């Protein structure tokens, strides 16, 4: 599973993209917990930021299912236009 980060989140984490081994279907919320457990810095950043999530380039709630081969993205509220 590919996980993408954008904008402020990408900058704070110092990471634009990572790959997670994930054989069983899981949820966006569980992946997020797993990411927070990587380090105190990741936890702080992901806790302190209002986050949006997309799976395969569509917005989803955090209880949405993600599985092997999916593209999961986390990012701050959008500010285009």
């Amino acid at each position: 599973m590919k996980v993408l980060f954008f904008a402020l989140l990408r900058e704070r984490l110092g990471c634009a993209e990572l790959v997670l081994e994930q054989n069983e279907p899981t949820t966006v919320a569980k992946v997020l917990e797993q990411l927070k457990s990587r380090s105190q810095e990741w936890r702080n950043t992901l806790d302190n930021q209002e986050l949006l999530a997309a799976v395969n380039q569509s917005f989803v709630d955090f209880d949405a299912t993600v599985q092997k081969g999916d593209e999961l993205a986390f990012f701050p509220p959008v500010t285009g236009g």
Partner: protein
Amino acid sequence: MIRVAVQEHNFNMAELYHELSQSPANGAVVTFTGLVREVVDTELTHLTLEHYPGMTERALNDIGQQAMARWPLGKIIIIHRIGILGLNENIVFVGVASGHRKQAFAAAEFLMDYLKTRAPFWKKEHTSAGTSWVAAKDSDQTAASRWQSSKE
């Protein structure tokens, strides 16, 4: 018909207007253009626009389809620029052609309200005082949410 584009280069208003006004069935054309605006108290030199390649185009098409489902529209064009944008440069263009003005105005405003809250773009301001990511505005969420309670 919906056309969306995410691009670094500027758009040409004359060409866009020509594209919107081709059909004699459409008596009304409304356009919105958003530009890089000066920032009070700091000297803004430019913005950088980051986006989520692939998802942006999908999101813009989806927003366009929602507008088409709500109002009888002949044509929608949505263009969003990315990269480095100097003061007073164009950022975004939304154009709608319709039979009547009321629908064209409503659709253009709907498209902008949804684009502001549902298309994955992020602005970063570069000023004499440093750089900072632009914060999302509550007023944009409020503007977008009013379309959920009303069909017009």
